[in-house]
């Protein structure tokens, strides 16, 4: 049964999430250097009593397994500790930055799908055509190109040279957008603020495209090769022999089967999306989670790094869970 299969996948991913949390915890604690020393390093002279107080406040005086247990129970409750630098709960900091990151990630995913699907399908249908050769050469360049460099090139061309699009940030300074969900596109739509909408969309184009392009390249290649395979299959001949028009043969009979391997790859690409997120947010000064983590690393703000890495990893696990479920729906052979 499908429901049981899905439940099974959900159950399997729970211990993985705990494992992820344990690895992140261990990394932090097994790193040379005492967290309190690091904290104090910027605070100036502090008395031994105060250090003790801090140690017990952060549970650093307890044995490692107790610390781990406290960390895990807190994490389940949504408490990821305090930022050393900003002295605020890590969860709050992450929550504040998350909408910007999600907005960017979804835009990138949208770009990736919009670019890769037509290219992948048409390249397979017209195999060895000019379109196929050019787009596959492009896709090959795409997978060989580092995202940060592509971002810089795009900024140079479209922002610096042509002035079509903004260089950095999420929205123009003068766009007066009332606070809301934190998703600027959504907020400006809800408040009917046209200027803010256009501004935030314009700001999304370059970083979204840069982040999505690499994924689009991989997806287009995978989709093309699986389409080539399904287009050669017997059921495609059957569909034609039924009198199916060619678009129906391609988009229904062949594509529906080619989606099965493609969806697996989409799941893996979510990892690229999340990792690339840190890079692209840095390139475009995008005020999201990734840029915050990079800044936190240089400030040696370990709880913040630890919490954010965990959020990334768990997002990845959840994304793969969704992909697994999708896969179960797409592939009827799984269901039994």
């Amino acid at each position, binding site marked *: 049964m499908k429901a049981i299969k899905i439940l099974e996948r959900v159950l399997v991913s729970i211990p*993985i*999430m705990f*494992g*992820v949390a344990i*690895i*992140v915890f261990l*990394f*932090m604690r097994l*790193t040379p250097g005492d967290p309190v020393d690091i904290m104090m390093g910027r605070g100036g002279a502090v008395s031994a009593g105060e250090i003790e107080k801090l140690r017990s406040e952060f549970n650093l005086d307890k044995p490692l397994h107790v610390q781990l247990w406290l960390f895990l129970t807190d994490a389940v409750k949504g408490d990821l500790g305090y930022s050393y630098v900003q002295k605020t709960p890590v969860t709050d900091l992450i929550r504040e930055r998350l909408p910007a990151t999600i907005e960017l990630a979804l835009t990138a995913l949208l770009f990736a799908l919009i670019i890769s699907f037509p290219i992948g399908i048409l390249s397979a249908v017209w195999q060895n055509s000019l379109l196929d050769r050019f787009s596959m050469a492009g896709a*090959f*360049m795409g*997978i*060989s*190109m*580092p*995202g*940060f*460099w592509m971002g*810089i*090139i795009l*900024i*140079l061309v479209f922002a*610096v040279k042509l002035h079509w699009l903004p260089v950095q940030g999420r929205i123009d300074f003068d766009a007066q957008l009332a606070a809301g969900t934190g998703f600027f596109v959504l907020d400006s739509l809800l408040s009917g603020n046209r200027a803010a909408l256009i501004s935030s969309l314009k700001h999304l184009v370059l970083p979204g495209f840069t982040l999505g392009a690499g994924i689009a390249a*991989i997806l287009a290649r995978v989709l093309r*090769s*699986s389409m080539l*395979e399904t287009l050669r299959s017997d059921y495609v001949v059957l569909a034609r022999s039924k009198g199916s028009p060619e678009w129906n043969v391609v988009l229904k009979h062949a594509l529906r089967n080619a989606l099965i*391997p493609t969806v697996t790859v989409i799941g893996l690409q*979510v*990892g*690229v999306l*999340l*990792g*690339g997120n*840190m*890079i692209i947010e*840095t*390139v475009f000064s995008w005020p999201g989670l990734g840029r915050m*983590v*990079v800044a936190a*690393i*240089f400030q040696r703000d*370990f709880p913040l*790094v630890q919490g954010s*890495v965990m959020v*990334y*990893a768990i997002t*990845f*696990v959840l994304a793969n869970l969704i992909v697994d479920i999708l896969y179960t729906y797409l592939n009827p052979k799984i269901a039994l």
Partner: protein
Amino acid sequence: METTPPTVQPTNRLIHLWSIRLKLWLRDTKEFLRELILHPTALIGGIIVILYILAALFAPQITSYDPTKGNLRDRLKPPAFIEGGMKEYPLGTDAQGRDLLTRIIYGARISLIVGVVSVGISVLIGSILGALSGFYRGKLDAIISRFADLLMAFPFLIFAIGVMAFIGSGVTNLIAALIFKGWVEFFRVVRGEMMSEKTEEYVEAAKVTGRGNLAIIVREIFPNIVQSIFVLATLRIGEMIIMEASLSFLGLGIPPHIPAWGSMVASGRDFMLVAWWVSTIPGIALMILVLSINLFAEGLRDILDPRLKTIA
């Protein structure tokens, strides 16, 4: 092939046996090289990669500049082929007046070392653990596989960034961070192949003739999977090089005093409006190298293991 007369001494026979093996190996290698040369993209990719390797090896002989010391009077000079450029600096200079070409050549060293070493050790660790896991199964397999599953739950770049955040930047640290997750893929491939090859008839036959397990793994099974691993490893070198550059771009990979393409791109960002070449040219060097490695890898795949085509 002529037959050995029965009177030959045992040592002679051994030498004879090995000479036959050598001949066969040479013949296979020659055949492989011939196919490689006939494969247009693999040939181009291979040649460019070799040029990079040569440039990296002989960097001090190729260029007379010091990659770390610049001449501040010549800062931000454009490349020679555009207006204002100087012949002395064919690709221009950076903000500290250092010759870009020199730094790019030295940067190739870091990229190639990180890519090859991290993939090489990943392959080694992954193959050994994968072979043991897949062949013996049992508790060891269960533990390693669970650990591998856990590592799979992290996106690669996030994992590397996280590790670098805690252990700090540096070439060795960076390689260690990349290996820490890089072995998993090879482990899974080798383990899977091991499990499926184990049931094949030739392994059964080897068992019957009384070969030890280690001999079966190394002499019988490995030759059958070594080609796919080789192709996969080549593809991963390019990815690792991009990974290294990305980390260096963020300032988390190679420390600033060593020339690396990623940090060169990052340092050029501040001068993008006045000196576009500082950040774009190192990126072009990087892209050409990765592109060539990938072209070469695809060629290898076509020749050695066409079955892999669907994977990546």
